[in-house]
């Protein structure tokens, strides 16, 4: 609160950068997970139809899961904060 303007700006920049890094890591690990779970044959160079369907569902399911975890996690954090 009592930080000078310059420091507030620096803090905001740091948060932005951590969020960018976090999104890029999430993207990378989502690709790795869905590839590992969905692609198992290597007779072709291109993604087969049922592999593509599997990847789409996997990504969608993971994102929904991640949002649900985020909501529950926020509730628990809030509960912990009000118990203080």
């Amino acid at each position, binding site marked *: 609160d009592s930080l000078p303007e310059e*420091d507030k700006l*620096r*803090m905001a920049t*740091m*948060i932005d950068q*951590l969020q960018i890094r*976090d999104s890029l*890591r*999430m993207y990378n*690990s989502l690709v790795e*997970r869905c590839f590992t*779970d*969905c692609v198992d044959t290597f007779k072709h160079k291109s993604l087969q139809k049922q592999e593509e369907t*599997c990847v*789409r*569902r*996997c990504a*969608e*399911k*993971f994102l*929904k*899961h*991640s949002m*649900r*975890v*985020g909501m*529950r*996690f926020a509730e*628990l*954090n809030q509960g*912990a904060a009000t118990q*203080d």
Partner: protein
Amino acid sequence: MAAAPNNAPTAVDKEQIFGMAEKEMEYRVELFNKLTHTCFNKCVEKKYKEAELNMGENSCIDRCVSKYWHVTNLVGQLLGAGRPPM
């Protein structure tokens, strides 16, 4: 740690403050990521027959997050951390 002779924080003090804030945020992000991946592994069917989470998966996820939270607190106590771990 090292107190500056006057009240204005030195450049090194500032590095420490920003560094601590950064580590704290990194910790929370990592906690969230590990929790997310662990509960996905424990609760979600991996054949991906549909893109929706079904009721069983949803309730498993809620309980998994709750239990993970308890384990985080329990391990935090064992490690003797004075501050709330989440």
